[in-house]
């Protein structure tokens, strides 16, 4: 795996030959207009659905091994 990762990194080094002076980064396509929505609840009462795939839960909580001694 280490060798393969080095191989991939060596291969992407070719990007260093591209002149990127004054080129802005492409964050997305910019096709969608950024929008705001009202800060209101549009969904809810889904506790059982949210917990339905939990590997382990107690009542309304997901459970994990003890974190704080």
């Amino acid at each position, binding site marked *: 795996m280490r060798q393969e990762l080095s191989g991939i*990194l060596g291969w992407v080094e070719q*990007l260093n030959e591209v002149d990127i002076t004054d080129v802005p980064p*492409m964050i997305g*396509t910019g096709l*969608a207009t950024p929008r705001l929505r009202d800060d209101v609840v549009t969904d809810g009462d889904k506790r059982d659905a*949210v917990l339905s795939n*939990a*590997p382990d839960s107690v009542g309304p909580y*997901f459970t994990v091994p003890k*974190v704080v001694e």
Partner: protein
Amino acid sequence: MHDLTLASARKALRERRLSAIDLTDHFLAAIKKLDGDINSYVTVTEDQARAGARAADALLATGNAPSLCGLPLGIKDLFCTNGVRTTASSNILRDFVPPYESTVTSNLLADGAIFLGKTNLDEFAMGSTNMTSAFGPVTNPWRRKGTDVSLVPGGSSGGSAAAVAAGLALGTTGTDTGGSIRQPASYCGITGIKPTYGRCSRFGTIAFASSLDQAGPMARTMEDCAILLESMAGFDPKDSTSVDRPVPRYEDALERGVKGLKVGIPREYRPDTLPDDIAALWDQGIAWLRDAGAEIVDVSLPHTKYGLPTYYIVALAEASSNLARYDGVRFGERVDAASLDELYEATRHAGFGEEVRRRILMGTYVLSSGYYDAYYLRAQKVRTLIQRDFLNAFDTVDVLLTPTAPSAAFAHSERPTDPVQIYLNDIFTVPASMAGVPALSLPAGLDHDGLPLGLQLIGRYFEEETLFAAGRVMEKAAGFTHRPALHAGAFA
């Protein structure tokens, strides 16, 4: 029934010459007979499909049926389906049952489609061979002339492509991040379209690389893809990158023709290593469009060669972030351990396959402080240059025509061991993904071994209609009616 297209089945159902339950039973029987050899389905939802078909027959009897009423489809197992296991072909989601429906599948269901089951894919859609699936590889229904060597279907939507090619669904959904609809469509001799980024909602589609992931249909014909895309596409407030823009009736664009259309031929897509069969087929495609009245124009997309390395930085960075959620706490598989940190480590080590691990590690590395500017930020800037290449080309031409993939399907045993060599399968599909422009692949002919080869049409943002029109002209000229060695019809 084996030769039905989605469009002809729709007509037969409407005219009550065929019932939805018979049609569904036909496909379920074909899957039972043939999919043991192909492995295109991870899950078959027999009972739901039959119940859906009976409801569809009732609706069809009223004469007021929605557009896809009673049409059996396969759904890539990357789309969350309410109450139906959704695995992303990963062990970490082996038993994940979403309590909600993805927007794309919910659109299809609202239009009356029947889901036969969930189709196999490369784990988390990461691959171009379908060999990284935790549910086993998919066998391409096609064989080289005179051999029974098993070939890959391409990927990541390998199950979706193989199912359509073998007659195990009228159409399927795929997702395309760097070629995952188009490359398997090419390898399996079917049609597939990756629409403009933002055309189909990503809500409920398990994320790989969010700035690139886009759903699209895979089917036998241009018309079938047009019908399916109209249903799948549309604005969704639940996806912040969904674009609020009306969905055209794509079917109406099919017979527009290409008279006066300017078709660009990018010179960078003809490397010295391009196999002769593919170069010849590409020339044939050019001739078809020219004969139909299109004007052929040579164009240059100078940053093409940087598409793949840019993709493997951007996509892997996003993947490492998206896959952080699989921690064994809220959903998915868990490996118990004494401490929380050990639980995370053991869960992720056991749950992810080798290619996914490799990509998470790479993605994390290129985002790490100290390397972020050198890799990730630089790649985002090169991505701008790749996008500009397309925008510049589309100042002078309406569509681009290229090969879809640099080879035909290869054998499982011929898969290169070097990951970079595997990544090269996507060399012609990745640039359009980086720019977010729509692109489709259609089956244009066979190579000297009798294997299908695809040609790719790339268009301007939201000009899927132009792609369908040009694709339809080429489809008619190609007259691709070949059938693979493994096909439901051969077992009837």
